[in-house]
């Protein structure tokens, strides 16, 4: 809140913000329909592929007795990783009092929700017996990291939903009050019901602020927990490449990199499609670029530890694993993710000229692609080498080359998460109207 503004001034500012941000909610563009159509087509093809997997079993994938986890688990780790950005932006940076996150915090929350929901789905896709999913609740054993994972992922979904929903309340109230004539009745009814009778009294705002603050604090340990536990799915085993004590922080720091990349991509396209240049400013990209450098440097530090220390000692099994990564079968993928997905993004983002919307979006794409392939690198090469020789099995057991069905299903699940995100950014204001107005000196408690 800068200087005190007159009532009229405030009214004008508020009306402009409201109209700018709500414009996309009121109409559906041709491009949007096309985008949704593409996503739905991909999902339909993936459902068809999944039917074959259900019918014939996981045989349709390239997974076999040695490489028994493949793309699905890699994608699961990628989803959980990317979903952590909700916590990073809103909670960590937000609680530090940084105002530049206001226009992008909701985007981060929406990414978090969409991705963490699909993390749950892809685990079911990976199961040999999805029909027995309920066994996890009927016979659940708390000693198993999978049980911890389900617990914390469910908690994270819940808190993420609340963190998305509660700050939406004032905006829902605004939409209910102002959009009745502009949108279809069903849509207005949604806002009316979801607004929970919000009127915006000082007391309501007081409760809202307090609740959000509690949730922001709560989500930090939960987010750390989900990705740490996800890392333990690997680190709790006795395999070279996974048997690492730094896997928790290694995963968490990598998650912030992946999430920041995803937010940059989303920021760019939302700003362009919804013409929100005034709100998601060049400065937002500049700051996100700086944040990306910070989290990437932390990740780089953990990478050094993860590869340099065993690489220095070259214990038998570690040596085999590292050999595969550094100069062996996965060398290209490894160096591509390390250089293209980590080193170059850090280096380029150091320059102010690169921290502009378009370059940052490209860097975001490199980071997200690198993040996915990095998860692939973490999961698969470790499984290719067992402690004991792999013998008396067909050649396909020695390797892992994902099948078309597997790739289709994976892309389909990613498409679902993108679709959820696409629907969320259409149905709800991507930028918090009330917080933005508040920042620009509008007394929101009086201007609903």
């Amino acid at each position, binding site marked *: 809140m800068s200087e005190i503004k007159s009532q009229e001034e405030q009214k004008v500012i508020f009306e402009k913000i409201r109209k700018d941000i709500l414009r996309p909610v009121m109409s559906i563009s041709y491009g949007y329909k096309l985008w949704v159509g593409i996503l739905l087509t991909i999902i339909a093809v993936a459902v068809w592929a999944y039917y074959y997997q259900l019918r014939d079993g996981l045989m349709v994938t390239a997974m076999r007795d040695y490489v028994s986890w493949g793309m699905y688990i890699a994608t699961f780790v990628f989803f959980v990783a990317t979903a952590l950005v909700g916590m990073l932006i809103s909670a960590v940076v937000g609680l530090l009092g940084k105002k530049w996150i206001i226009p992008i915090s909701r985007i981060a929350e929406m990414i978090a929700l969409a991705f963490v929901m699909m993390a749950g789905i892809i685990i079911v896709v990976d199961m040999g017996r999805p029909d027995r999913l309920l066994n996890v609740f009927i016979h659940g054993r708390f000693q198993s990291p999978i049980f911890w994972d389900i617990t914390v992922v469910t908690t994270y979904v819940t808190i993420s939903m609340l963190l998305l929903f509660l700050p939406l309340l004032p905006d829902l109230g605004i939409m209910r009050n102002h959009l009745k004539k502009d949108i279809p009745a069903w849509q207005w009814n949604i806002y009316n019901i979801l607004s929970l009778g919000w009127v915006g009294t000082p007391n309501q705002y007081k409760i809202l602020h307090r609740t959000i603050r509690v949730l922001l604090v709560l989500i930090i340990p939960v987010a750390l927990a989900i990705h740490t536990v996800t890392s333990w799915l690997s680190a*709790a085993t006795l395999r070279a490449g996974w048997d690492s004590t730094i896997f928790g922080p290694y995963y968490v720091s990598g998650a912030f990199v992946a999430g920041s990349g995803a937010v940059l991509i989303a920021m760019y396209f939302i700003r362009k499609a919804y013409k929100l240049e005034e709100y998601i400013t060049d400065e937002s990209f500049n700051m996100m670029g700086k944040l990306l450098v910070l989290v990437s440097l932390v990740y780089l530090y953990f990478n050094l530890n993860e590869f340099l220390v065993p690489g220095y000692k070259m214990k038998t099994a570690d040596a085999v694993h590292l050999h595969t990564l550094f100069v062996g079968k996965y060398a290209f993928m490894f160096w591509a993710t390390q250089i293209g997905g980590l080193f170059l993004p850090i280096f380029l983002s150091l320059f102010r000229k690169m921290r502009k919307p378009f370059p940052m979006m490209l860097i975001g794409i490199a980071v997200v692609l690198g993040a996915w392939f990095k998860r692939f690198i973490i999961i698969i090469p470790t499984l290719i080498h067992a402690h004991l020789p792999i013998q008396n099995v067909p050649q396909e057991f020695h390797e892992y080359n994902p099948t078309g069905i597997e790739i289709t299903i994976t892309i389909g699940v990613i498409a679902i998460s993108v679709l959820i995100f696409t629907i969320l950014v259409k149905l709800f204001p991507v930028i918090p109207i009330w917080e933005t107005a508040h920042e620009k000196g509008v007394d929101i408690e009086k201007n609903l």
Partner: protein
Amino acid sequence: MSQNITPEVTSRRNFLKKFGITVGAAGAVTSLGLLSACVNDDDEMVSLLTTDGQTVQVKKSQLKVNLVEMQERGREGIPGKKYVMVIDLAKCLNARLCMAACQGAHHLKPEQHHINVLQMQNAEGTGFYYQPKPCMHCDNPPCTKVCPVDATFKRQDGIVLIDNERCIGCRFCIAACPYSARVFNWSEPKYVEGDENRVYDIELNVPQKKGTISKCLFSADQLRVGKLPYCVSACPNGTYWFGDANEDAVTNGTSKETVRLSTLLHENAAYTLMPELGTKPRVYYLPPKDRLFDYQNTEKNYLGEEEHGHHA
């Protein structure tokens, strides 16, 4: 043999006490492994051979094999026993009759190995030897720890089993097992005649089920009737010793000779696989000294990789 492994008397008595005569008769049938469908409701009498070798007459209608009871019994294990296997690496000639017997008994496909005979070399320049590798039935099993649904578990008699009625197919146990002892039914398993009507036997893991794990069971179904495991009895070369650590006795599957377990382990300086992992295997190996076969270079190095590879 029967002096060392005699679960039949006690287990059957417990069984009768617990479930009554009818179920006991059924139990005798299951013990014999005759689990095929027999559920006609007529009162025809059938002859059955009980586990202690007597013939009894039972009404056919009473021969319903109950999955729940089988599961309970299978999870409980055989009281008072601590099964143990000793593999004499000097004796293994790679005959692979153990693998064949095992795959036959458990209805496994050719690429599915509960027991796998590996060609090993401990270090470069040292001799090659064959190493049969069943499940180690670890006393600190990494696999059962990670199971989210208690589908795989360790019994009081030391055996690690898998319940494919409960397994959700997450394959965490495969990832966790350092011995690669577990296999998965990636597609529709191999069914043999009668499997479709067969009640699932957790101690045999038959019928196998698509989308679930399968693994070595130390032939728990055989142990229940006082027999040696399939692989052990099939070996023509005297490679396997099997028995009960509580009785400190093991029996050779080929010669049927019974010796003191502690003496066998002591005299031969027996070892377990990868003891540094802390898994505490119940399978011991006797060093491959004075092997019965010639040195064979298989061009695999001691890590099981091609010798001509990059990896020295």
